[in-house]
């Protein structure tokens, strides 16, 4: 499955549409029939996001080693994948150009914790791409916990999508993208106090 455009919302930047170069391979749904024999098949040519579990099994083959070296292989985590159980592998694998996290349905919230852990615990610095049932009404919360790229479900309204990131001017929790507004405000207040005292 390959969509033509992705939303990219990097830290400190505005959200924008970019050209998609990646194909997601091995999705367990009607979107992509290729999952029938993923263990035997090889992913198609070009830049491909493969299931993490498949990558674990095949990462040492000559083909995958070569393509990984050329930054053509990325991985996606399913809802059932426990990223912490594979912490050692993930922390060493800065070879992937990006990590994708799959939402089988938008109400399955496991992907939020997966992204938060990748950022917070495993210190993943590259892009995290949301794939699967990605709807505009969840973009903002996804972007807060660690996602910075989004592959929208095909029927979603692209114009409305970009507006979702600026719906709120404040946040009440500390998260990857931003801290609690109360903490930011307190820090500003302290700075002001210091300046006043210095003057």
């Amino acid at each position, binding site marked *: 499955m390959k969509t033509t455009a992705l939303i990219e919302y990097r830290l400190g930047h505005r959200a924008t549409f970019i050209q998609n170069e990646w194909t997601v391979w091995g999705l367990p749904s009607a979107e992509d029939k290729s999952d029938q024999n993923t263990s035997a098949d090889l992913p198609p040519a070009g830049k491909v996001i493969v299931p993490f579990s498949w990558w674990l099994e095949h990462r040492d083959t000559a083909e995958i080693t070569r393509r990984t070296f050329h930054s053509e292989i990325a991985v996606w985590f399913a809802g059932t994948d426990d990223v912490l159980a594979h912490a050692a592998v993930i922390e060493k694998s800065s070879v992937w150009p990006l990590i994708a996290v799959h939402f089988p349905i938008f109400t399955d919230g*496991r992907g*939020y914790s*997966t992204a*938060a852990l990748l950022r917070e615990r495993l210190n993943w610095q590259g892009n995290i791409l949301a794939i699967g049932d990605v709807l505009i*009404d969840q973009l903002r919360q996804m972007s807060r*916990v660690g996602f910075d790229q989004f592959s929208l479900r095909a029927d979603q309204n692209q114009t409305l999508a970009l507006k979702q990131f600026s719906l709120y001017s404040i946040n*009440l929790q500390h998260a990857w993208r931003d801290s609690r507004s109360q903490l930011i405000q307190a820090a500003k207040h302290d700075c002001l106090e210091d300046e006043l005292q210095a003057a």
Partner: protein
Amino acid sequence: MYQYDPIDQALVDERVIQFRDQVDRRINGSLPESEFRPLRLQNGLYLQRHAYMLRVAIPYGLLSSKQLLTLADIADRYDQGYGHFTTRQNIQFNWVELEQTPDILAELAKVEMHAIQTSGNCIRNITSDPFAGVAADEVVDPRPICELLRQWSTLHPEFAFLPRKFKFAINGSTEDRTVLLCHDVGIQLHKDSNGEIVADIYAGGGMGRTPILGNLVHTNLPWQKLPSYLTALLRVYNRFGRRDNLYKARIKILVKALSPEEFARQVNIEWRQIQESDHNFTPAEWQRVAQHFTKPAYQILPSLDAAAVAAQADTSSRPAFQRWLKRNVRAHQIAGYASVVLSLKPHATQAPGDATATQMRAIANLAQAYSFGELRVTHEQNLVLADVEQSQLFALWCAAKKSNLVLPNIGLLTDIIACPGGDFCSLANAKSLPIAKAIQERFDNLDYLFDLGDLSVNISGCINSCGHHHVGNIGILGVDKDGEEWYQITLGGEQGVNAAIGKVIGPSFGALDIPTVMDNILKVYVKERQSDERFIDTYRRLGIAPFKTAAYLNQKLSTELV
């Protein structure tokens, strides 16, 4: 009470804009119902049998006169002139139009209220002790922690789509008036040896079809670390809670499956990694919030004894006034003050927890005149005026009597806790309100009710247990058998520090039999009780057997024989 700062206000204002857009898209068809449903639920909007219902949060039960006046206006303008106070310190409007909900939310935002996360698989409205700040047995005033956690949980990005709903209760007293152990997370606040506020965390309690009391998973957690600890706890639940079966998705099932010890261990492993992080509260945040929960401007007053208080009433009113003092008035931390419970349980004339717009306005005025303009909602579905001068009690009684709010039945048999049931709720298997009405009609004699003393009766229209029937001394659960409504009775439930889950006595009964069955059960108590024994004490001493035998005595009962 707490007052929004510009950050809090921005959040509710921007939430209205977001929801208005979502409703517009639902109406123009670009957002299908299946995708709108979780969004509207996270804003408290249910689709019931006859109409949409909007559930508005009353965080930890605290309400100002001004807010209650707004709720009265909403009841008049957008509903049928009344609201229903729930067992989770919310208020529900049963007859709203989808198109109008953004306008209602905008009205609420003007008085610092919202409906955020009053439903959905997310962290729900945080509940607490309705006597917070005034209870004589209070160790820590829980309100600043409640408010800090209200903010922390509001639109939490990581936990908006948990496996199932998630309910917090917070208690700071020796007694427990929060049903703490029946919550997904119960937070018991106390002080450590240095006088610092710390929390004991209970996890995995809940009612529903698998009622279970929460287990202690952490002790003496410094209050500042609540956000990081709760993040760790919710993260374990979010990742490993069951999502394959709706009925096994609550955290209690995970805690039970792993064992409380193993669950606590996994949470601790996660917490160790983040416990020093920015998740935690700062002293400055405490200061910002706690300043709103200082004591009101109490007068220095003499403490009045019972005789002096009773003497306020004229001779003809005195017996009724004294009954009210006995059941509806509570001791206060401050000399010369008392807390008053206004009964929303009139006998059979109104559903438990219902208040008309006219009553709401009257109550708002009473709070303004007698209790610093504030009131509290109890999970028993009554309202509390927390800070009333003892010398004003008779004046308050006279004023409240005009609005039918002084029935002296708090904690008595007719102070029934009931969900809206099959009359409104699309989840219900059976009606609750006609059962409550029938019981209130049958047991209308105050002398008899006073003689029975403390006795809790809880009615739920389905196993979701919104009427908390599992912890009622007498619990009544509506069940569906082949399209007919039947009622199962449990005995021996209790809330408080001795919380217990009731036991089912046997086959269920038809609706018409319930008052008679109750009567049979109560006769055993009256016959067998020793001196001052409460119903629950007699039940514990004798066990279920004599009550069970009595319940099925009457051969004419249409008892279901399965």
